[in-house]
């Protein structure tokens, strides 16, 4: 029994483990009695969070406490000192400590391997275990301190509140990256969980469970990992579907985990902004990044892109800033140059997208101007009868072009995923070579036969993803309006289904190692 309650490196605590169900049940059971007492609530929450953290990564839990102490003190100090130079020096100090810790744990081995590869020395890699969640809470610390420095946010006066914010367990392992300015004001507010919150929370938990375990884990373990493990053994069509599968895997895994976090927080009375907004429905890469891992992309925008100067320093600088942001954003995902490459491809695509948008805007403006300048021609516009069919036609063409844009954007994103996921750069090239030069379309039917269940599940995943938002909202309302017994039944069925699909050999969430 004691073994169960202590940290086990082989079996870290995640939302999809049986242990978590007991954990969350005990949490909610006592929470109902003490949620009204503010200080007790904060202490209660923090203890659960720190224990969760301990179960997930052992004694690295001390790192989060230390970083909470450092950032809490520094931010208050920054707030108190009154010369800009001192403020800047303190901020610099805070950034160095935060990024220093992150770099030490995450990037030391990458630097060592670069030094070794360049024959500048022979260093032994450290093989450090990456503390879980460090990428997430480092960014939360940074945004908090920078907000205080920028004067946008008054630092919290209670250390407990800050520790509560940083360690809040639903978002601890895989995000979202919560902003202190969004979250901290909620800590001392009265907790109110409405019927809507229960319904929406349940909807998110059910969806998350389904996406993470039923879709992502299933198609990953039973198909996608085989392809990426040894792509040369598979024909182009298998590789292609492996890539499509992976696009679904990474989306469902990451967004499913995020959704569960947001849903649970909602049940506890806390609102966390959405992290994914059906990203593959995007019709441009700019839109994709507005809908994919929103908490990260908005963080990068606010604290990296804007800090670099954003678009205020001219066209050239804008593109450079965009590129730098995406390269570093790529590196955030993992300590490997292939992630930098992945970020770079997205950076180039975003820059091209921006250029096209600028050209379009110019063109559009000029046309509008000319129309404004000659009001007479306006009156000579065709009659409504005549206009109707053309507008229908242009409506259709714009719909088709919108659809094509979605297909194109999706495929570009998939292309980039190849480099993101492949074990090595060479493997990525092999996958592309197989798809382009060794497609073997004949393999389609046997492939479908061999992996019927996998492709059925993958199909369901894509179907759900491309379901219009309005319909999804209706479904959410349906869940909200259910009586409690219906909600219990629904959750029970989903858990039962997840157990059926779940592999006891736990599939680690992909972002966990980031």
């Amino acid at each position: 029994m004691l073994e169960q309650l202590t940290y086990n490196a082989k079996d870290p605590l995640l939302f999809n483990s049986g242990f978590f169900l007991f954990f969350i049940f005990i949490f909610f059971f006592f929470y109902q009695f003490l949620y009204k007492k503010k200080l007790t609530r904060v202490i209660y929450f923090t203890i659960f969070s720190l224990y969760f953290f301990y179960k997930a990564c052992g004694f690295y839990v001390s790192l989060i406490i230390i970083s909470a102490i450092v950032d809490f003190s520094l931010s208050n100090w920054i707030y108190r000192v009154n010369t800009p130079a001192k403020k800047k020096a303190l901020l610099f100090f805070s950034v160095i400590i935060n990024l220093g810790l992150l770099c030490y744990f995450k990037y030391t081995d990458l630097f060592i391997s670069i030094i070794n590869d360049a024959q500048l020395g022979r260093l032994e890699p450290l093989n450090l275990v990456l503390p879980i969640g460090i990428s997430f809470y480092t960014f939360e610390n940074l945004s908090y301190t920078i907000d205080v420095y920028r004067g946008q946010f008054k630092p919290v006066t209670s250390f407990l509140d800050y520790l509560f914010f940083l360690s809040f367990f639903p978002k601890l392992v895989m995000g979202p990256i919560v902003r202190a300015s969004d979250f901290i004001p909620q800590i001392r507010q009265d907790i109110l969980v409405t019927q809507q919150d229960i319904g929406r929370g349940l909807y998110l938990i059910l969806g998350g469970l389904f996406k993470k375990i039923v879709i992502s884990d299933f198609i990953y373990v039973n198909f996608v990992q085989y392809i990426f493990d040894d792509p040369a053994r598979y024909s182009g069509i298998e590789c292609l579907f492996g890539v499509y599968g992976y696009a679904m895997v990474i989306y469902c895994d990451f967004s499913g985990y995020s959704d569960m976090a947001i849903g649970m927080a909602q049940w506890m009375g806390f609102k966390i902004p959405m992290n994914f907004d059906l990203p593959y429905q995007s019709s441009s890469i700019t839109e994709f990044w507005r809908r994919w891992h929103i908490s990260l992309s908005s963080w990068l925008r606010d604290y990296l892109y804007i800090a670099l100067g954003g678009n205020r320093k001219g066209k050239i600088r804008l593109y450079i800033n965009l590129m730098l942001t995406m390269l570093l954003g790529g590196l955030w995902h993992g300590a490997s140059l292939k992630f930098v490459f992945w970020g770079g491809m997205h950076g180039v695509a975003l820059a091209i997208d921006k250029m096209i948008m600028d050209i379009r805007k110019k063109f559009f403006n000029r046309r509008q101007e000319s129309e404004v300048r000659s009001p007479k021609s306006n009156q000579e516009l065709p009659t409504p009868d005549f206009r109707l069919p053309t507008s229908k036609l242009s409506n259709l063409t714009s719909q088709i072009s919108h659809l094509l844009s979605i297909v194109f954007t999706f495929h570009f994103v998939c292309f980039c995923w190849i480099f993101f996921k492949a074990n090595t750069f060479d493997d990525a090239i092999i996958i592309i070579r197989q798809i382009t030069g060794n497609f073997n379309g004949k393999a389609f039917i046997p492939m479908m036969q061999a992996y019927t269940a996998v492709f059925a599940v993958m199909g369901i995943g894509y179907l759900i993803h491309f379901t219009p938002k309005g319909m999804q909202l209706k479904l959410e309302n349906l869940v909200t309006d259910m009586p409690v017994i219906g909600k219990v039944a629904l959750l029970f069925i989903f858990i039962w289904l997840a157990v059926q699909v779940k592999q006891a050999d736990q599939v680690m969430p992909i972002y966990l190692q980031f």
Partner: protein
Amino acid sequence: MEALNRLRQTALITLVIVLLLILLSLTDSSFRLGRYKFKRVDLLSDIKTTGLYRKSPLSGRLLTDSVIRADSITRAAFKADPASVIDFGSDSLPELRHFFESLFQTQQKQKKTRIGYFGDSMIEGDLVTQDLRSTLQDTFGGIGVGFMPVTSIVAGFRQTILHTFSGNWQTYTLLDHSGANHVLGISGFDFVPATVGTADRATTGPGSWVKYSAVSKNRLNRFYNVRLFYGSAKGPSNYVTAGGRNFSLDGTSAVNELQLLKGYPVQSVQAAFQCQDRVNVFGFSLEGDSGVYVDNFSFRGNSGMPLTKIPADILSGINSRLDYGLIILHYGVNVVNEKVTDFSWYERGMTEVVNHLKAAMPNTSILIISAGDKSIRRDGEYITDPSVPLVIDIQKRVAQKTDVAFWNLYEAMGGYNSMVKWVQGDTVLANKDYTHPNFRGARKIADLLYKHLMTEYKTYVRKKV
């Protein structure tokens, strides 16, 4: 406002869920619906510390019955190491004598030694064979990859040669049942070039071509001799052009040979076919003048049994030109199936294969390599497929019955649940399908095989001298 607060519902919902799941864990809730079995939901299994599966190693049985010679049984029992090569021939006539004698002569620089390594997807892309070839050539000499097919689905994957070909070859295989008008070569494939209206001897015509280029690796960076093997052809209307010279394909035997290049090193060779008639092309051999050659005859999904479809005259025909010292049969993974307990059909099939090969190549040794370990997922845990030891027993039995040599790869890999270690170990030796060793695992297999073969070889040489 307080009336609106439904926070208590969260406690209620989780309470009922946990109670329901505990209740479900206490009963056996598995059931069948059609052919699908729904698993038992056991929430408590996460809390319990004992694993679901007791890990008892499966013992390799000794096989005894009237069709197996008595000394064969003692021979198997005699070996202390279950991973060593067992020669089921007799003391006076050990099975591996042909191979070892050939190897001995190769060492004395008197002749080449050739090994035909038949296998399934385990050896695709020259896996295992490339490492075995490399270590053997280190010791006994030799330059080149040996036999090459004309087309291959894993051409891009192979590291030991650059292999490209035109898209207009017709490829027939062991598993095509449609074949009166083609003849399978030793590799189980038959390649037919596109026919042309007039054989104008131009290399740029509409005919089919294949090109092999050396790679910059030791002993693989040049070819000395390039030989083409093909079936009987009608006469002067069929040509192949290579190295700027035209050769007519007009052999009348079951297997004919054309030496396209001889004795001087080249980095690449392209053979362009201009044939007015159907010609069955079996493949090429790229080799030096001495040493050891290991031919990779891979065929994915093959159980081994269809090898009887390769005609005896083809086997003896090619053997008269390539002179195989050893034929290796490395199969089994494709018949492993947890639902099957009786593999006597496999015993019959493989016995026939061995006898077929023996009849066509009487002076060639035969070595059966067993299936390696392969895991299945049972309640989330990876364990050795229970039918793996059954298949291996059958393979050993075939070797005993036909008096050939046997090597237990499963034992050499580490026995029960070794695949789990190969996949999950610090150095990853196998793929996540828990079936295929990766290039590192393949190298390990080749090294183990080399080591165990050499142990036997040394004993042979000691006895001889």
